[in-house]
């Protein structure tokens, strides 16, 4: 990619990642949540992959790590749901819900958002990686 793209990417990739994390963590208070935040997090990695090639992105998150993290995200969500059984019901919000509109409120919702964010972010990144690798092997042949 050209120098302009590389420079701009270097400047904004951190901000995109940070914005994604903000959307995930603020999901229970403002529009957004695990899914949309996860997509933005994945986009920061996709941007890096487009600008610097997939080797740079893979150096940060390898394929194995990606697939493991994806399963861990899903399992975390399931465990949060199962934790509700401690209070008597599947998916019950067992943590204290706190004061509304504070960051640490809404009980398990924030934890669920984080696990969805991991699952979606890594999943989307893995899909993009798979497409890139497929294209590369096709070109090599």
């Amino acid at each position, binding site marked *: 990619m050209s120098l302009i793209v590389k420079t701009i990417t270097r400047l904004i990739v951190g901000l995109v990642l940070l914005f994604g994390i903000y959307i995930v963590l603020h999901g229970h208070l403002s529009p957004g949540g695990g899914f949309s935040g996860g997509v933005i997090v994945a986009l920061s990695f996709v941007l890096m992959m487009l600008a610097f090639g997939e080797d740079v992105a893979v150096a940060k998150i390898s394929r194995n790590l990606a697939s*493991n993290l994806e*399963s861990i995200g899903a*399992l975390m969500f*399931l465990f949060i749901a*199962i934790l*509700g059984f401690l*209070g*008597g*019901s*599947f998916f019950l919000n067992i943590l204290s819900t706190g004061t509304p509109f504070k960051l640490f409120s809404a009980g398990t919702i924030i934890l669920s958002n984080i696990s969805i964010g991991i699952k979606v972010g890594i999943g989307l990144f893995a899909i993009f990686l798979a497409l890139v690798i497929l294209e590369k092997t096709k070109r090599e042949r």
Partner: protein
Amino acid sequence: MKDVNIIPLFVIIPLLTAFLIALLGKTIKNFSEKIIVASSSLLLAFSLYSQILLRHTPLKTLVYNVGGWLPPFGISMVLDGLSSFMLIVVNLIAFFVAVYSLSYMEKYTDKPKFFTLFALMVSGLNGVIVTGDIFNLFVFLEIASIASYALVAFGTQAEELEASFKYTIMGTVASSFIFLGIVFLYGFASTLNMAHMASVLNSKLSIWLLPFVSVLFLAGFSLKAAMVPFHGWLPDAHSSAPASISAMLSGVLIKTLGIYAMMRIFFNVLGITQAQLSILMFLGSLSIITGAILAFSQWDFKRLLAYSTISQVGYIVLGLGLGTPLGIFGALFHLFNHSVFKSLLFLNSGAVDYAASTRDLRETGGLNKVMPVTTKTNFIASMSISGIPPFSGFFSKLIIIFACIQKGHIGYGLCAVIGSILTLIYFMKLQKFVFLGELKDKFKQIAEVPYLMRFSMICLAAICILAGFLLLPALRPFLDRASDVLLGGTNYAAAVMGAALR
């Protein structure tokens, strides 16, 4: 409230299995095999336990409020006679298919991935069955469908990818129809809970909504159930998948996603009308005849079975379309029987493919000398599907034909009889070309399949023989409770609301 806690387990266990296998399957040796057998036998045990649970429940309905929210607001999970019946069908077949796959999937490379997708599919199917929320039903339907699209393409050969692509397109079209129907219902009734929706639709009348939504659902679910004008994707998809997956697809997937969801929505939520029943009867008998005639000329073992599925599903839909107690009872009984013997037949085709590496009927022959177990189980399944007296298929077809005559539809009854004769003819063709006749030299060395595959086939064959006993008074409640739910129609709303508030 303790007993109710088993309802969400039908979704939790397979989901947990799927993601644990995805996480640990590659690192721990034989982990995926052990955990899939453990989870599917656990699910089978729970689904059998749900029958016992229902017997001791006065209302015959159990409702689980997810997250402790009461029905009109929260998501509820419903276990009634019909759900329990379908859970047993799905988990019974899933258990035997899982055991069979342990040996069968040795030919393929990536076992953990296969079992992940398999467990996801089972969780989707169980979810469709236990959910009491119409949007949740759509979500689980998509989970099961998407897992099955990937499983059809599991061999990654050209024809498998093509079949999977075709299946994906048709499945997505079907899902879009269903989704659109749900959108309209939600827009009108402002609720997603099926029981609440049924009571709202009862009290708030609309001239255009119900016919319009019924057409959308009918198109969507007919595509999922592969009834005849919508059957184009089925033969490719069911014949290209690995044999154990074909058994799941033909045995339980199209019945859960197509027929069960259709029954639930039409009978219990919308309240079925005579016009819809007539359409179902017509589609059913069309499927019986067309599927049987198309199956006739097939030379591929699994393609023949796939066309036969279309024909047999026609019987179920015909029985449902009659709308009489006897018709619905026969339809549900045939649903149970068909899932058992069609899975068995697909497992047989997998065994032949495993040992002889061919599915072409013109190449095989005389396999009864080298594969005795496969031959005998296949004979039992063939006789059962063609409706020969002591086997299970005979009773269910007889009940459906009686129900046709009782309602005065002699023509449809005749269709069912002709379909049964055609079925017998093409299964005789299968017997002749695969198992009887001269054994070719190149097949002299092949041996019977491994014992896990034999175990599954023998157990399913035993169920084929014994399923007729379900008509005995002691065992009849199993089917009666299921057909009572359908006959009760929109009383479903009152039953679920009553059980939830208790």
